[in-house]
């Protein structure tokens, strides 16, 4: 049998090696194409899913810790700014100023490249293997699974905006009154309040947190399978933890813009 690559989905004479007279004799043989959808990939999909799972866990832990840190905003201006300052000076003199922050940023950036890269490859492989006839009419039952790419892209957009708004203070994204942190002092509280006093920024933040909830709820549940958990109890615990972490991160973060807009924080 000849073997050559074929274009997935369209089984045409030009695309694949069909057995001669593939109609009737193939009905008996049950085989019309020896070619595969793709050549053996260097990075198999299951490995890429492990990459997504590991980078996803890093993100999840980061957003969880970040959310807890954010809640310090309710402890007052000075306390919150001291916390922001502490993040920059922690472990000095073993680390330089902002040392820890830069380590975290490097790790997160590495994970982001791996996560988004793997997502793109997996998405295209899924489409190829499915072929021309897509599965339609799934209803709401796997809404979170189907929207992973969409919520992921919203998150990517949000991350870019968020860094420009509250880290670099780039004009256009940041509020007019943005003041960067100095070696002696951070102005995180004032920057945050000024940012959320703009309804559009608060609304985008809200949308991003809902996207994060959907993405994490399904994503962390996927992690359980991707890391090979087959035990019944382990899977049940994983399912519960996924939902709980996703919900906690969303609610913990959402209170902040709501508090700013309602005047609780100013």
């Amino acid at each position, binding site marked *: 049998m000849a073997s050559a690559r074929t274009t*997935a*989905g369209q*089984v*045409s*004479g030009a695309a*694949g090696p*069909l057995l001669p007279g*593939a*109609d009737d004799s*193939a*009905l008996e043989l*049950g*085989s*019309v*194409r020896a070619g*595969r*959808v*793709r*050549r*053996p*990939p260097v990075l*198999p*999909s*299951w*490995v*890429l*899913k*492990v990459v997504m799972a590991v980078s996803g866990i890093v993100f999840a832990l980061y957003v969880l810790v970040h959310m807890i840190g954010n809640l310090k905003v309710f402890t007052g201006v000075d306390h919150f700014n001291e916390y922001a300052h502490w993040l920059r000076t922690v472990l000095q003199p073993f680390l330089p100023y902002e040392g820890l922050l830069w380590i975290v940023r490097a790790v997160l950036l590495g994970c982001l490249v791996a996560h988004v890269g793997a997502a793109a490859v*997996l998405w295209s*492989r*899924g*489409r*190829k*293997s*499915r*072929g*021309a*006839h*897509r*599965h*339609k*009419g*799934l209803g709401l*039952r*796997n809404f979170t*699974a*189907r929207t*992973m790419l969409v919520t992921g892209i919203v998150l990517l957009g949000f991350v870019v905006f968020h860094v420009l708004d509250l880290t670099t203070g780039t004009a256009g994204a940041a509020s007019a009154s943005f003041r960067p942190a100095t070696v002696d002092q951070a102005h995180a509280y004032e920057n945050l309040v000024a940012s959320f006093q703009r309804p559009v920024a608060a609304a985008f933040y809200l949308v991003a947190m809902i996207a994060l909830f959907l993405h994490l709820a*399904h994503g962390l*549940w*996927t992690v*359980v*399978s*991707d*890391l*090979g*958990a*087959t035990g*019944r109890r382990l*899977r049940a615990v994983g399912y519960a933890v996924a939902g709980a972490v996703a919900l906690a991160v969303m609610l913990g973060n959402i209170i902040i813009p709501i508090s700013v807009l309602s005047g609780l924080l100013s």
Partner: protein
Amino acid sequence: MRLVIEVWRQDTPADSGRYETHTVDDATPEMSVLELLDRLNDQLVEEGLEPVAFESDCREGICGACGVTVDGSPHGPQRNTPSCHQRLAGYADGQRIRLEPLRSAAFPVIRDLVVDRSALDRIITAGGHVAIAAGTAPDADSLLVPHERAERALDMAACIGCGACVAACPNGAAHLFVGSKLTHLSLLPTGRQQRGKRARAMLFEMEQDFGPCSLYGECSRVCPANIPLTAIAAVNKEGLRSFFRHKDD
């Protein structure tokens, strides 16, 4: 009961295919989807037309030969039921019913509703079997298998290889099929001796035709053998295990 059937017609694998509409006037609620096709084919033959090609064998849910997509659902609208057992009770007089082949790029259409599922056979050939010299039959009770383990292995061995899980998956993944085989064979004494080698071989083969798993969960809804979603996790579990262990077993 009168049913309007939209059925996929495709003469050769190279053909682009199209839907044809026919009416069957005497369908009954207790008829299976395959019996509806039988009825339609009788009619077509009487009219001197070419009957619709579809596969079936046992018609009692054990062989895995049947499998058509009914109204977008592989096997049919009832959960975990093979096409040969899908009854028409849910259809009302005058309703439309759409029949098409199991859809996946890995399953090229041979003709009408018959698809080529040899991509699944290739995975079995690669490692879905026990290939060791097991010697003569051992004495009873010399190889102990705990009851619970035997039950789990049997549950996973229930897969009939129909391919509906692949057709249900928006990514065209075969994780439920591969995971059920990997789990079943990894639980029993002879199969275990090739556990790592098998995982590598089956995953290598799987990757060339099938997509990644995004945990839509559609597969275990349609699986006539009730393979649970846990089987999916076994794919990565066995993959990771064989990767880090680097041994045949």
